[in-house]
């Protein structure tokens, strides 16, 4: 079993939840999301996030708007939708249950 691959898969599984969590705090553009996630050591490489953002947006959980930037091309600012908030709530509940379950199974 490839340990690196297993770790990556584990992270990917909760990545959607993390992205929604970041956006729950307010509007953000991909670089903001990326730095938050990088800080939390949630992701190592940036590429992963783009297909995910597009998928969440297409599923109606996120929405975005264009904003002119001081330097460079306009940026996409993402916002969480009502559906997204609800979805995030569900995920959080599951996460808490899981975390508890994991904690309990780790007890000596």
């Amino acid at each position, binding site marked *: 079993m490839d340990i690196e691959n297993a770790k990556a898969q584990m992270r990917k599984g909760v990545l959607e939840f993390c992205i929604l969590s970041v956006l729950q705090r307010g509007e953000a553009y991909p*670089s903001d999301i990326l730095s938050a996630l990088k800080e939390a050591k949630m992701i190592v490489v940036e*590429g992963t996030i783009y297909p*995910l953002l597009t998928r969440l947006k297409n599923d109606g959980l996120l929405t975005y708007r264009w904003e002119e930037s001081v330097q*460079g091309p306009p940026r996409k600012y993402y916002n969480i939708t009502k559906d997204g908030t609800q979805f995030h709530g569900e995920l959080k509940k599951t996460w808490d249950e899981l975390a508890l379950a994991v904690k309990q199974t780790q007890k000596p």
Partner: protein
Amino acid sequence: MNKTISINLGGSVFNIEEDAFVMLKNYLDRIKQNFVNDDAQTEIMHDIEMRIAELFAERMNDRKNVMVHSDVQEIISIMGRPEDYKLNDDDEKNTNKAFADNGNSKRRIFRDKDDAIAGGVCAGLSHYFGWDPLIPRLIVVFIFLISGGTAILGYILFWALVPAAETTAEKLRMRGEPVNVENISRFINEETKSAGERINKWGKKTAASGRKHSNEVISTLGRVLAILFGSILVFFGLGLLSFLFITLVVSDISMFGFEGTSWEMLSSLVFNNDGTLWILLIGFCMMIGAPAIAFLYLGLRLLVNTDKLIKGLGISLISLFVLGILLCLWEGISTAKEFSRDAMTKNFVEIPAAKGDTLHLETMDDLVFTGRQSHHNNFGDLVKMDSNYTYYGEPLHLEVRNGEAGVYKLEVRKRSHGRSINQANELNSHIRYDYSVLGDTIQFAPNFWTPTGDRFRGQCVDLIVYVPQGNYVSYGKNMNLITWFDDEKAVRRMGEDGFDDSEDDSDAIDEDAKVLITEDSVIIKGKNIDIKTKRN
């Protein structure tokens, strides 16, 4: 020193070194491959390019304004390997399955522009069937030849309807190789290498020939059109030449309305001297031959694609063509003039009806020309006497009219044309027509004729028989040769306005009636009946 390329990435322009560009391009292509089955492919790729553009912009400053290989490497390490873009395992499985579907089992047909001679149709077919490209090419050439060139339409249709393999994925599919990241990167490497070689070769070649084919598509299309028109022109040229051959050598001029006539007959019968025929033939050759040669020459030039021009050929051919038309017109008009005047003579002969009230009409045997070889054509019959042809006409026209009381009369009308009244009269007087009157019977010759040496100038003979009202005409043997005659009304009574066919005396007993059976006919002949049935 390195070459740089200017690229547009996510809406911003960057200068990037060539090797860095190739690396970035491969990277983006491989990422793109992850989302082949994703509707959002374009959007995802756009976002990724935007991010890379942002990372590029961060690295730009006053002293650095070009992206190099190490920058791209750095960015790839930030963004992640192409595999890192995959969303999860499910997607990976799906994509692999998709590759298997359209890669291994389903080979798609594309045109191969990289290995093309014209449209890459044959090269594409060779990939599809796994053959050497030479095989479909030979087959296409063979079909083209046996179809007389019409199969070119099939090729053009194929060209128009089958797409060319443009992207790497399409090129792999064309070859039936699975479309996956490994194959794509291998293929791109090969492509880049061979493209480099090709560009080098091409550069040398163009430098040597000094020509620039800036747009290959246009030149290919032009080539195909040139072959198409070249074939059509050669085809027309050969058609005209064979037409000329048939008219001159086979001497069949029935296509001009002279059925069964040869140039020789026309010459000795219509033209005043042999020169006329020769001038006409030379003019005809020039009129048909010049365009034939022009078509062949232009067609062959298009086919072999040469720029060589024979100097003055065009103007010579046009002059020949015009001269040919003038010669033919000249001779045509001068011959038509020979027919411009006409003369008619009428000759009346009274027939003392010996007994009864019936005039018997018969046609005598052909005394002059029987046994000679004759050529039937639309002038009449031509008979060869000595070295010349004699006109031996049959357009005799017999008409029976209501005449004065008590007098049977025969009128012989002769007509002829000529270039002058005198000549028309002279030719008219030469017309020979024989008939004889024996008691109450007129015997007509089946033909008139003109002496050898007289030209055909529309000579003809009309016969008119005048029969008093209330008397009878009986049509005797061979009368069908010179008149429209109804077997069942062999004896007809002259009424007030022409024949009175309603009165019928056939009920009366005719004791003198005879039945004569000959080899080829049955004749019933009596006072009021004269029926002849001929065996076919």
